Each structure stands twice: as C-alpha cells, then as structure tokens.
C-alpha cells in the first residue's frame, strides 16, 4: 500500500487530536480508543517490518516533492524494527496506565498518542530538519507527561530535564545550520553523498558540526558526561510514562546509528567513521558508571534508571565497534533492554503501590499483597536484565561479547561483565530486602488490576519470547546491520530516479 509508511505518524496524530478536542470527556471511551489505536499501530508496524524484510529501501515523498528537495520518510529494516518496538512498548505501558494512572491529571491519553507520533516520526524521517521537528514533538509531549500528576520531585527533576533539552535543541539547530551551510542539503542520503565530495577546506567545519550533533544525540541517549538528568527524571516520572521513556534514550542511539552510518559512514571519504573511536571510551565509561550507580541506588526506580544507563553504554559500545556482528548484536540487545526495562518500571510501581508507606525504597517494610506473583515477575525481570541465561539478556550480551576483536576484548569483556555482576548484586539485594525481609502484608491492600497485569506480562514476557525466537530475530537484525553498513544502497534507492521507492 502506497501510504503505509506514513501511517505510524498519522494514526497516533489523529487519535491523539480526537481525544484532546474535548477535555472533560469520560475516561472509559478514551481508554478503549487509545488501546485500540495502539494495537492497530502494532499491526501496522508488523506490516512495515514484513515490507522492509524484502531488503528494499523505500521512501515516501511528502507533498510529492521528490528527494533531495522535499521532505521524505524513509523505510528500511532498522526504522521498521524501531517503530515495531515502540508500538509494543506503548501497548504495554498504556495497558498499565489504564488501571488508574491516567486519571491523575488531564489529557493523559491524547498526549500519550502525540508522544508516540513524535517517536515514530523520528524513526521514519529521512530529513535532518524534520528529525529536529519530531524530536521537539516527542520532547514537548514528554515534558507534559513527566508532569502528569504533579508533585515537588517531578517539577524539579522536570525543570532540569527541560532546561538541558532546550540547550540541546539549540545545539541541534547550530549543528544543522553548519551541516546545511557546508553541504547545501538536508536530505540524509544526499548529505552522505555530498560529504564525500566536499572541498577539503571545509571539512573542519563539517567535522565540528558532526561532533556537535554527537553531543546532542549523546544528551538524548544519556551517554557519560551528559546523563545527569536521567536517573531523577525517570525515577520521578509516573510509571507508565517512565516505561515509555525507556524508548527515549533509544531514539538518541538510533539517531547516532543513522547519522554516523548513512552520512558519515564508509562512503564519506576522509570523514568516514571518525566518531566511533571517541564513542568507544565514552560508552565504556557509561557502562562502568552505570554499574556503580546501580549499587548505590536506594530506591527501586532509581536502580532501574541506572540499569537503563548500563544498557545505553552497552548499546553505544556496539555502535562504536561498527561492524555487522556488533550492530546486529546491539539491535537484538536493544529490543530486549527496551521492553524489559519498561516492564521493570511498571513492576517497581506495582511493588511500591502494594507496600504502602515503604514505597519503592529498598528498606525492609510491609510485604507486598501478592508476593508470589510479583516475586516471580521480579525474578524473571532481574535475571533477564542482568543477562543471566536462559533469557534474552544473556543472548544479547553474548552476541555483543562475541563481536569484539581481540584488541577490544579486555576492556569490553571486563567492564561489561563487571557491570552485569554489579547489576546482579544490586538486584539480588533489593529483591531479598523487599520480598524476604518483609513484614506482614496488608490483606486489604491494593492488588494488581487485570490491565496492569496485562501490561506487565506483555513487557516482561517479551524476554522469553525473544529468547525462543532468537533465530529469526537475529537473522533480521543481521540483515539490518548489513543494510546499514552499505550507505551506497540508500543513495541508490532514494536519489536515483529509476529505482525509486513506491512514491
């Protein structure tokens, strides 16, 4: 179908707007509409994955302006995969939110859909400035969602988050200006081609712009010196929002992956792959720091936030190794870590809810009302997030460790395994404090509602599924990595009129 590519943007846009037109409508129809629309999004994204799996890169020219002049949306294996991941994560968090979190403030469902529109748009666009616009859509929606329900902690963490991201947006625009000024185009594929033909005198300027862009994406993905906003913002966000935020750092990683393979990839001449060595050290430092952070956390939510930091570092290590095996491993790991850490945020909230005053803090307190169910969920989540076999975390980490060359092995293996150990110790300690040193539970206490349970099962249950279907999934990620490392194919598909996509 001709318009399939733009549907993941338009569907949440229209659903969100329809729910925002009237502010004081009843909750129930909104929940139904939101869930149906998100489920539909999952179906669409699966169709996109199927379409992209033929290996063809297709594009959608908005307003019939052909590239490189107009804005295009670009569909390849990577973007289809990311859209699919987003929609599954969103379905899980939305199901959880429908149990009551959505009533704590106004307009939750509409904003949630618009946030999805921003994320999907960022994954699909093939134009640098349009990427900026979608970044802003997802940011402004995330600011509003972060404030959902109010509270002192949230406003202060929110102010840090907003101020840092505003500065980040300013830098993004400067970088865009530099890139446009030197190459004269905004289309990513076209830019990649022009970078190679660039006058050597202007290369310095372009390089500065590219580094600036790396800082911006690094801020979004929370790499080492730029991560300070993450633990507090994530720990104070409402649980379903925090779960959806698990994809936000991945938007930054996706952008790094896209820009530094397509524009500054192998075909970029003198500027080919120049950021990867930098990324290597920063990513390793992020892994190490995440490990320390996990051990120091005194609150379950902060702990999960630091686990996200470890995963960000791990993913960026994969980016910096820059070969098919490592990229394929990182894509598999990305699927796993996004869904599982989203699930853990939901789980932490459910535990906090059932423990009454003790909340999510890691101290002995009242027991949870449903120890068997939550304990099992925690067990599964902990095993998979630290990467113990037999679940998907182990497979992802093993693939990544396997992709390292002998010169890289000492650093990567030791740091990654040590951070996993730190995660294991921390998760073990907090689990035993919460579930074993617990007092008598309140028999009248809140129990998991069916929709909460559905959200939890969808996100945490993805881990065994990812492990069982590891074969076909790694095949797909391998093909995506191969596609990514061949920027020539993109230029061919998008700029050569004869072999153009279905526009």
């Amino acid at each position, binding site marked *: 179908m001709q318009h399939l590519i733009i549907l993941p943007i338009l569907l949440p846009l229209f659903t969100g707007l329809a729910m925002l037109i009237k502010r004081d409508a009843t909750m129930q129809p909104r929940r139904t509409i939101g869930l149906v629309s998100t489920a539909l999004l999952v179906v669409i994204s699966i169709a996109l994955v199927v379409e992209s799996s033929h290996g063809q890169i297709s594009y959608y020219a908005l307003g019939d302006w052909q590239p490189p002049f107009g804005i295009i949306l670009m569909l390849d294996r990577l973007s289809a995969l990311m859209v699919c991941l987003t929609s599954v994560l969103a379905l899980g968090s939305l199901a959880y939110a429908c149990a009551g979190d959505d009533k704590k403030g106004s*307009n939750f469902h509409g904003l949630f859909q618009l946030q999805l529109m921003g994320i999907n748009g960022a994954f699909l666009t093939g134009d640098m400035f349009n990427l900026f616009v979608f970044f802003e859509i997802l940011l402004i929606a995330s600011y509003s969602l972060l404030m959902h329900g109010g509270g002192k902690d949230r406003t202060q963490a929110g102010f840090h988050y907003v101020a840092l991201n505003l500065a980040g947006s300013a830098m993004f625009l400067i970088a865009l200006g530099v890139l446009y000024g030197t190459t004269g185009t905004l289309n990513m594929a076209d830019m990649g081609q022009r970078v190679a033909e660039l006058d050597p005198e202007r290369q310095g300027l372009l390089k500065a712009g590219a580094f600036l862009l790396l800082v911006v994406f690094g801020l979004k993905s929370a790499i080492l010196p730029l991560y300070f906003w993450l633990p507090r913002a994530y720990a104070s966000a409402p649980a379903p929002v925090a779960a959806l935020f698990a994809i936000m750092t991945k938007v930054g990683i996706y952008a790094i992956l896209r820009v530094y393979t397509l524009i500054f990839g192998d075909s970029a001449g003198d500027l080919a792959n120049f950021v990867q060595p930098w990324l290597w050290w920063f990513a390793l430092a992020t892994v190490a720091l995440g490990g320390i952070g996990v051990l120091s956390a005194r609150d379950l939510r902060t702990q999960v936030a630091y686990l996200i930091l470890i995963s960000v570092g791990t993913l960026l290590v994969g980016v910096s190794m820059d070969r098919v095996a490592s990229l394929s491993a990182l894509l598999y790991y990305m699927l796993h870590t996004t869904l599982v850490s989203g699930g853990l945020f939901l789980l932490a909230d459910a535990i906090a809810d059932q423990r009454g005053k003790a909340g999510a803090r890691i101290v002995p307190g009242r027991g949870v009302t449903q120890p068997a169910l939550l304990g099992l969920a925690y067990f599964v989540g902990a095993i998979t997030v630290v990467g113990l076999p037999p679940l998907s975390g182990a497979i992802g980490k093993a693939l990544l460790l396997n992709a390292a060359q002998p010169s890289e092995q000492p650093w990567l293996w030791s740091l990654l395994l040590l951070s996993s150990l730190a995660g294991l110790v921390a998760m073990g300690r907090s689990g035993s404090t919460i579930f074993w040193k617990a007092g008598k539970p309140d028999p009248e206490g809140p129990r998991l509602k069916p929709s909460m349970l559905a959200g939890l099962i969808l996100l945490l249950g993805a881990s065994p599924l990812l492990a069982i279907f590891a074969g076909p999934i790694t095949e797909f990620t391998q093909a995506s990595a191969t596609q990514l490392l061949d920027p020539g194919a993109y230029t061919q598909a998008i700029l050569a009129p004869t072999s153009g996509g279905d526009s």
Partner: protein
Amino acid sequence: MDFRGFDTLGEITVLCIAAIGIYKLLNRLRLFMPSSDSEGRPWSKDLHPMLLATVSQTLLPLALLVSVFIFLRGHNEPGGGFIAGLVTAVALILLYIARGVDWAQQRLTFQYQPIAVTGVVIAALTGLGSWLFGHNFLTSAFGHFAIPYIGEVELATAMLFDLGVYLTVVGATLMILANLGKLTTRHRPSKENDKETV
C-alpha cells in the same frame, strides 16, 4: 503549502501540545498577588483604567481586519496564518488586560483547547485530502475561480492548511495567556472548576 509543509504541521503540533501541557502545569498552582511593590507603595486601585478599556474595544475590529488581510496575502507574500493568528490573539488578550477576566469570560464564551486542536485537525485533514486524488500526503492543489463582483481569485489547499495554522495559534496562545492571567483570580485552573475554565 510549500515544500516544508510537513515541518509546519509538526510545528503547530508542538504549539498545541505546549498549550495543553501548560494547562496541566497551571492546574492547582497557587501564586499570591503582591499588594505593593518592593518599596512599599501600594498598587493602583484602578484595575481597569477607562482609557485602555475604550481603546482596546475600538482596536478589536481593526485588529481582526488586519489579521484577515495578513492571512489572505500570506500565500505569495510575507504574512500567513501564523502572524494573523498572533494579531488576533493579541487583540483578544488586550481585552482581558483592559477589562479583567470576569468581563472577558462572559463575552468570550468559547473554549480555547478545542480551537487549538481543531486547527491541527484541519491542517492534517487538508494533507489527507490529497490521498483522494491519489497523491501523497500534503500535496498542494490550487485553481483560479471567478467570483462575481470580486474578480478572479486564486484558491489553494494551502489556504485551508493556513486556516488550521491560524486556529492553532489563536487557540494555543489564548489558552496559555488567559489561563496564566487567571492564576490570581477565582477562575484559577483546577480540577474542581475544570468545566468552566477555558
């Protein structure tokens, strides 16, 4: 709509979300109104001076006329929905300043959030319209029509898109500023009187 129309759709979405997010933030926020300035002099008792009230009321139709003019010339020359929307919004906000929330609330009975959201819906639907003709999202079409007494007029789908931009800007700006101005009055946005606030 020009070749960056998709960006414009994104930008009005941002504006609309910002207004809704700000409404969320203002919910149940309490600010106190100082009764005197930093040196102890009391504020003027005359909250709504007559001169401003009279001028603002005369200005309103003129400002609306100007905004229509700017809106119409925007297709080929500087102007357009965004600036026209700002002009309208400023004229309406001036009414709030000159006459106070109570007075303005009685006369401006429509809600602002639906206007802002409807604006984005119109713009997006305009883009969707090109699907009917087998074109991609946001493809522009235009034609020349002869209207009796006025002469030949160029109409384009871009105008409809611009109307969406105009409505979003008016709705979002008023939603932000009017609610901000209400913080110290009894119309303060809060859960209880959710239905009567705009």
